[in-house]
């Protein structure tokens, strides 16, 4: 229980927070502490790379944990995603690697429009499209992409860790190619 308490504390929310509150706050804090706005840059050394990485990691952890709480999942049930039938489950289990293309495949199998994802997650359709097309330049920092992927994966009830584990190395490789 103490753990939940810490998660809520980190997001500066109370236990009454809805899934939407959690998602909005997570997104806001992630943008704030992951970005380099003047408010953050003015902190200088006070906010070291190490401290930042640690904070962002804890944010992700809190977000994922709170999202998985059964009482919050009542709200998830209202998402427009159809129940996964066995066929589909099987098909998803066969996916070797969650690339942009395979994410798109999942979405098309489930007959979901990008706009529908936007309606729930408020992630702009062009970002969703860029994830599927692997247009990596659209994501100036990994933290943004990461939070979008978590939401994308959750929307389709995919295994978040697997999606992150497959997709992010592709992003990193793509970005370092672009840099060199």
């Amino acid at each position, binding site marked *: 229980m103490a753990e939940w308490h810490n998660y809520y504390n980190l997001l*500066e929310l109370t236990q009454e927070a809805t899934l939407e509150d959690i998602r*909005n706050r997570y*997104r*806001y*804090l992630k*943008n*704030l502490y992951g*970005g380099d*706005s*003047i*408010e*953050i*840059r*003015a*902190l*200088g050394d*006070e*906010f*070291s790379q190490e*401290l930042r990485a640690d904070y962002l990691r804890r944010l992700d952890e809190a977000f994922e944990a709170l999202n998985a709480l059964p009482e919050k999942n009542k709200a998830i049930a209202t998402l427009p995603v159809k129940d996964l039938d066995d066929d589909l489950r099987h098909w998803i289990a066969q996916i070797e690697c969650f690339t942009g293309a395979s994410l798109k495949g999942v979405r098309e199998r489930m007959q979901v429009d990008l706009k529908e994802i936007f309606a729930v997650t*408020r*992630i*702009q359709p062009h*970002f969703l499209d860029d994830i599927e097309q692997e247009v990596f330049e659209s994501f*100036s920092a990994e933290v*943004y992409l990461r939070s979008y992927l978590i939401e994308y994966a959750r929307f389709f009830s995919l295994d978040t860790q697997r999606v992150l584990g497959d997709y992010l190395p592709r992003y990193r490789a793509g970005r370092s190619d672009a840099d060199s």
Partner: protein
Amino acid sequence: MPEEQSARQTSIWAVGGGKGGTGKSFLTSSMATCLALQGKRTILLDADLGGANLHNFFGLIRPRSSLTDFFEKKVPLQEIAVHTGIANLQLITGSIGSLDSESINHAQKQKLFRHVQALDADMILIDLGAGTHINTLDTFLQADKMIVVTVPEITAIENMYQFIKSVYYRKLKSIFKAYDLNTLVQDTWKNRTAHNIRSLKDLINHLKLGSDQICSIFEREMSGFVVHLILNEVRTPKDILVGENLKRVCMNFFGLRVVYSGYTSYDEAVQKNINNKESFMLFNRLSPVVKEIRQITEHIVTQTPFPTPEELFDGRVA
């Protein structure tokens, strides 16, 4: 001392914030005008370090008597006060270098505080000017409402963080001094790397973990400790969010409670009114800034936060 404060009728507001030119004097004089127009007997105290200039905001020439007369000739504060031309509003002017000056010793400082607190008024608004001189910090800490002003610009924000940290550190030291624990804070901070202390917040957590006594002292002394934040010269809707962000950063990194009381827009009319020797709050009916200042004043009186519009939080990076 806390008991005396709660029994007192007069409410003292102090406005600081580190950097010069962020609109402290403009906002202090405007809020004072606002309160005076509501019928509260208000006194403005210009305690700016080398740049006492509040008289300009009322089209007055620099008053002849100042805090120097109070310190050197023992002239009572009430006699130094001049009328501003606005009902219920008087002005006490500082002198060049008054609070900055090393020549003001502890006893004099205490005397000034006592006399300010004894002034016959409903509201006393103190314009502290720039900087983090110890006298400035101590005056700030004596106020019932501690207010910082900044603008959405990186140096101003850096200075504001510095100011807030200095205030907080000074407050901690004074608390611990009162309980004879003062060396503890300093020693812990000096050895911060050894204790893995990376911020003021870490320092406090470290001290609290160390002893139940410190924990309870802290709870008692700091429970009402709140800094009010005003963001001036806002030019875009996105700027409004800066105040909200600053509030969070202060809570997260310094462990300090901050209320974002509101923002004021950038408006060239401000400068025009000052140059025309017109009081902004009286002569300007068109500027959004007038309404914004009224709201901020109300928020500070009632200690309510500015309601940042929801849609601003959703500002994702494009």
